[in-house]
């Protein structure tokens, strides 16, 4: 089986807008046959509205949020509104979907599988819910997924709640659904070993997407 070269990048805490610009530059590079990139980072609190957002899903006035330092941004990923904030691991795979069958939904399912396998490494049983893209634990949502694809190269990606302040989600209906969010730390009721987390994430991506990290 072919393996695909992938660079792993940890951008740490970075503003949503800076990370977006960097992703777009990397999409261009990968579309010109640069190695694929797997990025992890965290964002200061920010609400983003995907392309299929409905206005009613933001429950609080934008000005009130702004006064608390939380911006609301319209972005070019699929899906509705979501929240990023410190403690959420944001995963941006800049992958060439020509390697994976040029199938947008298969790619979404593969991203879900990586998260399901990662959570299994922490002894958590997570599932998909057909028609509700994302990853779920005991009826609560732990990971949200929304992607953009340009020239068959992906960007945007996955927000996985590690030890996120979950009360922040109360300002919206996440992904336009009446759902309760959860996090890895909430489920385990303990602090999370982030070194193990990143190493298991890479391993599960390597397996699911036939990657060689270099």
């Amino acid at each position, binding site marked *: 089986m072919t393996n695909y070269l992938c660079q792993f990048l940890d951008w740490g805490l970075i503003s949503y807008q800076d990370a977006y610009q960097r992703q777009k530059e990397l999409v261009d590079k990968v579309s010109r046959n640069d190695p694929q990139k797997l990025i992890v980072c965290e964002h200061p609190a920010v609400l983003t509205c995907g392309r299929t957002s409905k206005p009613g899903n933001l429950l609080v006035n934008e000005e009130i949020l702004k006064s608390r330092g939380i911006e609301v941004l319209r972005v070019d990923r699929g899906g509705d509104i979501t929240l990023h904030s410190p403690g959420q691991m944001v995963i941006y795979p800049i992958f060439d979907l020509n390697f994976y069958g040029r199938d*947008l*939904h298969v790619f979404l399912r593969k991203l879900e599988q990586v998260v399901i396998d990662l959570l299994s490494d922490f002894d958590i049983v997570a599932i998909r819910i057909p028609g509700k893209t994302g990853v779920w634990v005991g009826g609560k949502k732990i990971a949200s997924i929304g992607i953009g694809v340009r020239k068959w190269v992906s960007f945007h990606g996955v927000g996985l709640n590690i030890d996120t302040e979950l009360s922040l989600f109360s300002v919206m209906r996440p992904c336009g659904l009446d759902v309760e969010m959860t996090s890895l730390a909430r489920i385990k009721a303990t602090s999370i070993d982030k070194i193990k987390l990143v190493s298991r994430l890479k391993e599960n991506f390597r397996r699911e997407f036939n990657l060689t990290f270099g």
Partner: protein
Amino acid sequence: MSKHTLYELKLPSLGEGIKSATVVEWLVKEGDMVQVDDDLLEIATDKATFNVPSEHKGQLKKIAVKAGEDIVIGGKLAIIEEA
């Protein structure tokens, strides 16, 4: 009378089991000149957006599906007159 060839821009296959998508926005307007591989419009399906590129160089003569409307795979999105 124009001797230029007219091409239909069709919604490409986005994967097995994907039957249709929604037009999010057009990135060009009728009358614009377009190049091969230029992104012409953004579409969305499930939690993914995708930019549909032009396969021809020429003038965008007519947009057949407006923003917000659904289109089936293989359906006609626009007409391009080859330059």
